[in-house]
């Protein structure tokens, strides 16, 4: 039976449901709250060439297209002819993986009829990977944790004991991190089982024909949508908080009859701090926002991104060279979609949004509690989103990532802190025909001496700008005992010290009425 639009839909739906099922398995078993509460993981199915056929539905933007690239990178090192059924490959190399060491990626070839027909791949943020904890001060990758180059984790179902021993020895939470890796191994195995069942049920020998058809159709659809951008080059640039000096981010988007080149040339050089954003993450963020604007309804797959080329000069902050430190990649990468909104505002005024009060904020604390037990905890904070042509921005919501804030009751039960207030900031959304979303204010008091606090904050110097006459959102502020704090340095909090964090508001859209 030829691949008609019905059969294609049936097979594709089965494949997507296979990765969704694997995703649920990871959520339920993982130790990392980032995986199980923030969906900071992804499951992907590629064809035998490593082209993405299905990605789990809730997968956050940072992983779009990263795992297929991981599959291809693994295949470039291990010839598929050498692979056997029951093998699983592993890496957390940021350039091959997702952009930082905490995301461990697993890849498993799927055999059917004696040959590889697909790859199941997962990535998950493990509870700990060694190195300095959430410090943005790392100057090189070596400080950021245990680095697993692309290698074999399982040979025909048997684990590499040396690798496991090395890994366990180099991290703080060996049982939990190893547990999470086995949860992922179960998930990629599940994907393989489901793929084989789908092929059998539909009488298919492999996924080539299904894949080609989906990719070609998706490419055509995306090209059609991209043609809504009139031919031409669109530029945008802005400054971000940076370190001692602001960083400069810049994009030029050239559209020509359905082909688009997104070029970040002119952006700041890479930094000796972990604010560098590996190209794989930059590309994921670019793809995410173009798809969200133009083809949100279609499940993510390789074909959608064929008409889009992303370029960034090697050695820049959006394409750093190994071994740059990259742990805080999101603090740079979350600006990428905003840069693209800015560039395309004239061409697609109804699709873009004013700038949000992101990147994501974090406050990581560590020390010893009243019973002299060690604790470490990370609190997340979100600003408001930018307004659009038809509606206001949203108050305090994660964007472009999707990370929940820790509930106050949980935060207070897991670390010696007292949270006095968590309340929306009145007037923090940019004014406009549609107003930006508001940020919020949280006041955290330390209940012990010598609490080390490390912050990730943005938009404390440059607010989220509005669009088409809309006002900027309020800037973020961090005060320690009432005084503005330097959030680029570790702070030590004593008992009774109070930290006020005010997240930024989103920009407004259009002249206020």
């Amino acid at each position, binding site marked *: 039976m030829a691949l*008609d*639009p*019905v059969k294609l*839909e*049936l097979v594709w*739906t*089965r494949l997507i449901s296979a990765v969704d*099922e694997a995703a*649920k*398995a990871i*959520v*339920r*078993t*993982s*130790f*990392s709250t980032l*995986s*199980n509460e923030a969906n900071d993981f992804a499951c992907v199915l590629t064809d035998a060439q490593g082209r993405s056929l299905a990605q789990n539905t*809730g*997968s*956050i933007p940072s992983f779009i297209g990263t795992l297929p690239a991981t599959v291809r990178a693994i295949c470039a090192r291990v010839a598929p002819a050498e692979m056997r059924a029951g093998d699983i490959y592993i890496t957390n190399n940021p350039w091959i993986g997702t952009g930082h060491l905490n995301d461990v990626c697993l890849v498993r070839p799927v055999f059917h009829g004696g040959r590889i027909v697909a790859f199941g791949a997962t990535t998950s943020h493990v*509870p700990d990977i060694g190195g300095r904890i959430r410090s943005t001060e790392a100057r090189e990758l070596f400080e950021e944790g245990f680095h697993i180059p692309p290698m074999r984790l399982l040979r025909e179902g048997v684990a590499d004991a040396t690798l496991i021993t090395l890994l366990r020895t180099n991290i703080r*939470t060996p*049982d*939990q991190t190893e*547990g999470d890796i086995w949860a992922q191994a*179960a998930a990629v195995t599940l994907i393989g089982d489901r793929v084989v069942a789908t092929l059998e049920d539909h009488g298919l020998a492999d996924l080539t024909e299904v894949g080609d058809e*989906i990719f070609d*159709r*998706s490419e055509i659809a995306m090209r059609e949508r991209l043609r809504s951008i009139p031919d031409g080059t669109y530029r945008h640039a802005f400054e971000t908080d940076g370190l001692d000096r602001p960083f400069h981010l810049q994009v030029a988007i050239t559209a020509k009859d359905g082909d688009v080149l997104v070029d970040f040339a002119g952006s700041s050089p890479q930094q000796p701090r972990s604010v560098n954003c590996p190209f794989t993450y930059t590309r994921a963020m670019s793809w995410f926002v173009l*798809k*969200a604007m133009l083809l*949100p309804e*279609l499940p993510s797959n390789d074909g959608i991104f064929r008409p889009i080329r992303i370029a960034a000069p090697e050695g820049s902050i959006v394409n750093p060279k190994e071994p740059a430190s990259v742990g805080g990649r999101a603090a740079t990468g979350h600006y990428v979609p905003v840069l693209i909104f800015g560039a395309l505002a004239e061409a697609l005024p109804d*699709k873009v*949004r004013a700038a949000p009060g992101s990147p994501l904020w974090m406050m990581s604390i560590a020390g010893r509690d009243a019973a002299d037990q060690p604790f470490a905890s990370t609190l997340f904070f*979100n600003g408001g989103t930018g307004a*659009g042509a038809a509606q206001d921005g*949203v*108050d305090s*919501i*994660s*964007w472009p990532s*999707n*990370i*929940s*804030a820790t*509930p*106050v*009751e*949980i935060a*207070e*039960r897991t670390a010696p802190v*007292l949270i*006095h207030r*968590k*309340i*929306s900031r009145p007037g923090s959304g940019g004014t406009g025909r549609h107003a930006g979303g508001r940020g*919020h204010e949280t*006041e955290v008091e330390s209940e012990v001496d010598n609490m080390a606090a490390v912050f990730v904050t943005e938009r404390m110097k440059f607010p989220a700008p509005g669009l088409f006459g809309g006002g900027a959102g309020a800037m973020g502020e961090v005060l320690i005992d009432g005084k503005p704090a330097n959030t680029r340095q570790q702070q030590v909090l004593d008992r009774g010290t109070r930290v006020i964090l005010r997240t930024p508001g989103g920009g407004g859209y259009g002249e206020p009425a």
Partner: protein
Amino acid sequence: MPSLSLGIDIGGTFTDLVLHDPAHISSGSLKVLTTHADPVLGILEGTKRLLGESGANAAEIGRVVHATTLFTNALIERKGARTALLTTEGFSDILQIGRERRYELYDLQLTPPAPLVPAKLRLEVPERVKADGTVLRALDMEALDAAAQQAIDGGAESVAILFLHSDLHPEHERRAAERLAEKFPQLSVTASHTIVREVREYERGSTATANAYVAPMAGRYLARLSGELAGLRIDAPLLLMLSNGGLTHVEEAQRAPVQLLESGPAAGALAAAHLAGPSEPRILAFDMGGTTAKLSVVEHGEPEIVFGFEAARQARFIEGSGLPIRISAVDLMEIGAGGGSIARRDAIGLLKVGPDSAGSEPGPACYGRGGTAPTVTDANLLLGYLDPTRFAGGSLPLDRAAAEAAMDRLAQSLGITRDAAAWGIHDVVTEAMAGAARTHLAERGRDASGFTLVCTGGGGPVHGYHLARKLGIKRMVIPPEAGVASAFGLLTAPPRVDRVATLGRRLMAWSAPELEAAFAALEADAKAVLERGGFAEGASSERIVDARCVGQGAHMPVILPPGPWPADDDALHALIATAFQAAYLARFRRPPPNVPIDLVHARVVLRGAKAATELAAARFGETTGAGEREILADGISGMARIHDRDGLRPGFTASGPALVEEAGSTLVVGPKGRFTVLDSGNILVEIG
């Protein structure tokens, strides 16, 4: 001794009533239109008619069991009471800020669900209790009074109280609730810890607020219904179905009506199990109607339960777009696939079905009411499954030409034939249900092929055969005219009380007496509720602990042996650890990592004795002549024998392709199926 049972199920369109006589194993039932302005009227009318028809006396009724969607609808339509929320000072935006997550990642226009309480009624009260129970700031009674006054001045009729850490230390909430009850008797008051004693302020607050939102309405409605039933000289107690399939009495339902939100679907799941009978211990209940399909798992008569769900999802069926409700409820998979689901060509030329629905107005194209989009019902008509002259008991003649025109437009846009499009719609929509079922079962470590599919609703028997084939299910049961099945399901439920409390410490940090006391306290509380309703006799308690490995984000329910437990610490630790390891292995198919066990919540489920409800013997009519019709099943067309269900006697058996028609639905048996009419009146389909 009054012996009859009356079941009343209010749905969006119909109110179903069943009157059952266990002594004579007979029952009568009827449907009346739901009287939305005053739902009690429909109930009274139906009850009077039912009594009249059966010739029974009101005084013979010993039990009235009721389920209703009224409170869920109030949430969905935002038609509950004007509600205020009083929080710890500094936290009045808890409901507005929510989880800070988007439920749909690619939707740049996304708007989160609006809180049930408007900003001006979200008020703060100075007070603060720390996680360890230390009072940091005393409850300011004057400020509380002022806030309540402000709520009343703002028009509030009901108020929820949400203080931080009240799951562990409820004293401030309790005192605040007592004060308000005393000083402002006109206010309905819900303190969060009285509804759900779980950690996480947003989820607890959302649940408490939903309760406050429906409480005034529930209070009035249930009081009036009890009174009117008494007026009919029915002296029996009114029992209410809970979302978890248990029963409770009016007082408890008025106190915490949020527990009733999913009572309708719970009754449906119980009914499916009951109708299938005890010979089918593991069933997958499949109910397909006009806009949605619902699937639920019932094993040995017990529906599978979850300890939290979302109400009033605004983006239909998308997780995260509704209000979190932390109460126990039947675990229901609901997807946007029904007879009215619209088929279309998507952005890349593939066939998609739903979740948009043509509803009943204009409805499918074949209804001839102006609908032009092809729907699942149109496809089923063109596949030969439906008889255009007998749909909905012949009350709605179907327009085949209109269905063909709609189907042709779709087929043309996809470049396929009309038949391929019609079969494609049936196939794609059934695949969506199969996908949901597969994932749901796999998550619980189960395999679909061991289950029996029980099909109800207008669409269940039409899609059941193909769904079973996709899932590898070999047996399918179709109860006779499942029209009032849910109302019947009500009569099979036991009284039930669920209670939960935060534990929040590692297993090893608990002494045996402490743990025993924690569960015993919940049991005492639950028992008081059962006693109040007069069903404490023969009650049995189930102890469940929500547990996880330390550091794991998600926890899972672990069923523990009934108490009292060993008083020795080591013995109890070993007992719980063993149960945890077994549950972990069953669920995740691997032993837990070597990490300490964390106890999150204690749960107690107290069940009263189940009322014996034997099914009435089926009535069978005379065999009538059967015709035949061409149908397309399994992608192949062939002639199918048509059977009139009313005319089939027990023992009748035939092979597919076949159609068995009754007023509300048509059973489709494909070429690989064989069906048999059982003594119970059920049809069993075995699939080769």
